[in-house]
């Protein structure tokens, strides 16, 4: 009891100190978050954009477009696939190692998550295809409205 009474901090001051500590940490967290988000957020590209202004190699980005007809090839190991994604203006070769989603076929839309390699090939570590009616990758939804028709005609 006595020690607490001797403590120089008054109740009001303690409240202030607590408030300041909490605010400093939270503002620090917010600033850190903002900084990290600028560096770590993965941007979405369509092929013509990624060809015009390629992101720095090694940065995680997403690439969306149509799988070019006749471009889908499986490598000899049976699990690596190579294909090209295009948006009617440009095409980007993509390589992916893994099990492809069931609705991933030539001529369909795809969003590839991965990195741009130094040789201009996009190395994907995940492919998102249209799952079902209720789940369409958001970017693909917008894109298909704008470009899908055109792309489909060109690829036919």
């Amino acid at each position, binding site marked *: 009891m006595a*020690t*607490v009474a001797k*403590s120089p*901090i008054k*109740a*009001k001051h*303690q*409240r202030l100190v*607590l408030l300041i*500590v*909490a605010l400093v*940490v*939270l503002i*620090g*967290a*917010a600033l*850190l*978050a*903002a900084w*990290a*988000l600028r560096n*770590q*957020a*993965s*941007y*979405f590209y369509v092929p013509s954009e990624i060809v015009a202004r390629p992101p720095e190699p090694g940065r*995680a980005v*997403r690439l969306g477009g149509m799988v070019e007809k006749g471009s889908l090839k*499986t490598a*000899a*190991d*049976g*699990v690596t696939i190579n294909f090209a994604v295009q948006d009617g203006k440009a095409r980007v070769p993509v390589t992916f*190692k*893994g*099990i*492809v989603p*069931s*609705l991933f076929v030539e001529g369909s839309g795809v969003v590839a998550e991965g990195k741009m390699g130094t040789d201009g090939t996009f190395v994907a570590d*995940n492919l998102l295809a249209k*799952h*079902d*009616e*209720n*789940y*369409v*990758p*958001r*970017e693909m*939804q917008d894109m298909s409205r704008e470009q899908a028709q055109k792309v489909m005609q060109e690829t036919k």
Partner: protein
Amino acid sequence: MIAELGLAALWLAAALAALQLVSGALGLTERGAVLGGAVRPVAVVQGGLALLAFACLIYVFSVTDLSVKLVALNSHSMKPLVFKIAGAWGNHEGSMLLWVTVMGLGGAFVALVEKRLPERTMLATLAGQAFVSLGFYAFLLFASNPFERLSPVPMEGNGLNPLLQDLGLAFHPPTLYLGYVGLSIAFSFAIGALVTREVGPAFAKAMRPWVLGAWIFLTVGITAGSYWAYYELGWGGWWFWDPVENASLMPWLAATALLHSCGVLAARNALRAWTIMLGVVAFSMSMIGTFLVRSGILTSVHAFAVDPQRGTFILALLAIYIGGALVLFGLRAATVTEGERFAFVSREGALVVNNVMLSAILGIVLFGTLYPLFAEAMGAKVSVGPPYFNPMSALFAVPMLVVLMVGPLLRWRRDKFGRVGRELVIPAMLIVAAGICVLVLGGVALLPWIGLALSVGLGWASLLPLKGRNLRRTPLPIWGMVVAHFGIAVALFGMSSESAFSVEKLVAVRMGEVTQVGPWGVKLDTVEPVAGPNWTAMEARLLVRYGIDGKVTRMLPQSRSFWAPPQQTSESALLTRWNGQLYAVLGGEAPKVDGEKQSRWQLRLWWKPFAPLIWIGGLLIALGGLLALVGRVAADVRRIVAKDKIAYRREKQGR
């Protein structure tokens, strides 16, 4: 007929919620005091009616009444019964009905059993609960009526998303909802306390069991959801920082902070305004989560059909409730008097660190989840994933876990590190030893390395509060704390080990071929077609062996094709050993290379050392919560019984 009954029950429940709000609010005034007596019974009946409406929905789903639009859109007569029932909440309208049902039942339960607080505070609390419910009733009745009829009646329903046709998932949403909506009770208590200015230990003690209950359900729900994502999606990961996962994590973080600050308020009458604030924030996070998921503003596997009207409606509700609560807080916070003082080195001080760090993590997750929305408004399409979330949340989680080792040993009000320092020598040495061991093994990234070292020390330190106690006489809440903190160490060890030591193998193999993954030899025996009630599948028979002379075990991963709606899913096969889990996914048939006769099948295999500890740890955390809850409630019941006895004796003697 049943559907109409459900709709009528829903309207009646909404009307009663309005009555509950009005009579609760008037009951606080002098002239309306007589109305106060109606509040509790009305709350009980309202909960009952909401439950009746939900039962009606379950009934129409279980008999597949296709004249109800919701059933036709989301169910199919060929589905197993359990998934028909689960289908009732596997869609937007049904899940919102479940939401208001849980909310109504929560309010009814509070009205029935909560007698510890002054009646005025209870009236304000129940009125607050009714106010929140009313908004969601309006949302259901005007924007997403689950009982809408369809004409003409279709021949067959659309079916349920096959990913959702899984037992684990059938019971995962209700669990999470009990947690989300349970926090509405904490919110209402906070509102009630602000309105009547009754913020003190009694309020914290009354609120704590409700927060604990909601928190237990949230913990179990998140753990189950994570395990579901792990084995059902077939991607080998257990947490994807998907917006919907974040939507469940954010209320959990806020509720965890609330739980600890409640403890401070109950025991020491400090952190008053902060506890109220957290009560508001926790339920706000539940609502923001619901908004994110239900509005379709963020795409995710969980997001149901996109409907801008609904998004706007929920956004308006959010603005009213969160905005209103914050305004009330702003008006009244100044009148909440200062709490008791404490030194920095004290139990309170440690819990303040816990609270601030949890809030910081909450901020990090909230920022990362909403950032794609802001960026899109600015014209950039981005997504935010593990490279942001993992290091940023660890930045605050690690100091918090370090304090977690010390905090439970400290005394309330004022303490010295010197007193507890000696006990922490062993955990500190364990951390250093584990750190060196992992370093020697090599090849481990920074975060898993920190996690592994920390988890070992934390595991030991979390048991220290039991030292020197008579274990039989140790109160249940202390056991709860120890078990929950130990669970954190266990889960942390599992997570770190999974990311540090997992081995992945992706191959295309012929029948009879053997491939190695970690210590396992895996032989593809056969691939054969099999059929289920509403799917067909290719099933691989794998013969696996641990080490050179282990026992041969069978694993049966499948690649399933559902026909209603048409979709393919991969059913992974898991084999659990004491030291980890072997995870197998069957892909498709690889195209034949020139001159090849036998076909090859794609296999994706993982060996994940100690991965199951992630979920065992999660369940331990929930178990800790349960022990604490049982302990608290039992103590309350004993106190009430004793009080009644004393009152009874007095009455007798008086005669």
